[in-house]
């Protein structure tokens, strides 16, 4: 049981760390990119992905 809790805590720290915004934002970046790629707008995704990453970082720092 202790091992399971430790394992869960490890992944929580790894993924969430100090800011849950970064975890949610990191997933949202790829979900948005997937939606664009599926819509056949792969070239737009090339610009949207990095812009969303920078936006996520900015929001997490703004709401620190």
């Amino acid at each position, binding site marked *: 049981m202790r091992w399971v809790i430790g394992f869960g805590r*490890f992944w929580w*720290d*790894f*993924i969430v*760390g*100090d*800011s849950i915004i*970064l*975890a949610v*934002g*990191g*997933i949202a*970046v*790829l979900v948005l*990119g*997937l939606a*664009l*790629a*599926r819509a056949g707008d*792969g*070239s737009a*995704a*090339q610009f949207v*992905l*990095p812009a969303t*990453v*920078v936006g*996520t*970082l*900015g929001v*997490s*720092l703004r709401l*620190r």
Partner: protein
Amino acid sequence: MLSGALLLGSSFLASAVEMVEALTIVLAVGLTHNWRTALLGVLAGFVALAAVVAALGPSLVHYVPLNGLRVGVGVLLLIFGLQWLRKAILRAAGLKAPHDEAQIFERELAELRGGAAGGQAVDWTGFVVSFKGVFLEGLEVAFIVLTFGTNSGRFDLAAAGALLAFVIVGATGAVVHRPLARVPENAIKFTVGLALVSFGTFWGGEGIGVKWAAGDATIVILAAIYALSAAAIINLLQRSVPPLPAVGGGSD
């Protein structure tokens, strides 16, 4: 003769690109955690890779969902890299203490009381990052060798190109890791954060079907975009918020 040399060269170059990506991740873990952790991740990555290649052989290309793996590794690197970059930005802007000796002393004391081996203890976060980098890039090298070998009918030359790349990239890593260790700690962590976010965006994007126009060179372009953005954010933070007094420096 010429086609053989071309095959060897193509396999070498394609494999070298993937291996440099893996080396970057391993160096990042070694420099920021410790070399024991980084090398343990490399070893585990090689063992897992050898097991997959031995079990599936040439059918590997059909059975391993490379894109799914890219998304998984990409999202984790992206999130992990963003966490590092955020801390490095806060430190660079003077909003987080760059080094808190008291906190570090307390943590090391607690580790020693807990029986850990201090600075050389295996850091499992670093291990996972190192393992994933080696495993994913190793799989891509295996795909390159299998694809080139199958298409040309010369597995020996395709494998020789990859082996040559492994020797050269590995030797380069062994040479550069010492000078890199002298770079200031926060600069290293800032650079590592940039590298992880760039790799994460690139791999994650590839996995979901984004076709990067600049190919592997996109990683460098992304790193430049993120570096400029981070510099702009640091500048904005320094102007808008007065620096806080030194509070806990954190572990990363």
